[in-house]
């Protein structure tokens, strides 16, 4: 009665998004270390993040962080609210919905420069900064 139910999916997604964010974190710690080598090395490495393909990868990171955060709140609610377990399925769909609602505007800002639109005033998607 567990396999394929919302509890199974929320658990699996929590693991996969957690592992993905951890993998990015380890890479990110190494790439910020490059700032110790001065502006040239750091700016060249950071420019990679502005490439269209890497922006799409950033979307996966943002989606993972949002889902992991909202599903984490769901886990805490089920843990501490005595009748929380009764609403775990509704809470799972709430977490999914909140993740999507927060993801859409963030994805807009991340992808806009690829289409030549700069909502923040200054942007680049060629990796030439």
């Amino acid at each position, binding site marked *: 009665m567990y396999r394929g139910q919302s509890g199974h999916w929320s658990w699996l997604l929590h*693991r996969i998004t*957690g*592992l993905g*964010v*951890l993998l990015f*974190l*380890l890479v990110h*710690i*190494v790439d*910020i*270390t*490059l*700032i*110790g*080598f*001065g*502006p040239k090395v*750091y*700016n060249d490495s*950071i*420019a990679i*993040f*502005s490439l269209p393909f890497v*922006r799409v990868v*950033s979307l996966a*990171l*943002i989606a993972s*962080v*949002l889902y992991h*955060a909202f599903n*984490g*709140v769901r886990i*805490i609610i089920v*843990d501490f609210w005595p009748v929380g377990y009764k609403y775990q399925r509704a809470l799972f769909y709430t977490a999914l919905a909140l993740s999507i609602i*927060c993801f859409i*505007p*963030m994805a807009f*800002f*991340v992808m806009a*420069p690829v289409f030549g639109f*700069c909502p*923040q005033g*200054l*942007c*680049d*998607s060629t990796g030439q*900064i």
Partner: protein
Amino acid sequence: MATTLPERPATRPVGPRPRPGPESTRWETFSWWFFRVSGVALIFLAIIHLVIMHVTTDVSGTGYDFVAGRYANPFWRLYDLLLLTLALFHGLNGLRIILDDYISQRGVRLAVQSLLFLVAITFWLLGTITIVTFRPGVNIASALLGLLGR
């Protein structure tokens, strides 16, 4: 209705050895609380970090000068240090939990957990040194490597 219970076998039943339990319950309780407390803090720390680096500023504008401007204020160094510490230990502790689900041999578990501990310390030191020692215009890493080369 009286039924006789089968006698409990004197030796362990045949079959796979039961997986070892957590080494220390007190440690696992701490781990459980740490997940929840650091998790709540990380919701704010990580999402605000994402918004600053990808929404209010485009990622192409987060170069050396941008970092120099932020790190002139010690608040952001502390912010990043807290984010680094909580995220790294929350994540690697999560990886430990996942690996424990698939590794049942005590010796292998110990080896893997020792490796995770080493990874945690290495990456934490790397990140902390970067955040604490950053000074605009000073190539700390080059200077350190230069010292080693001498």
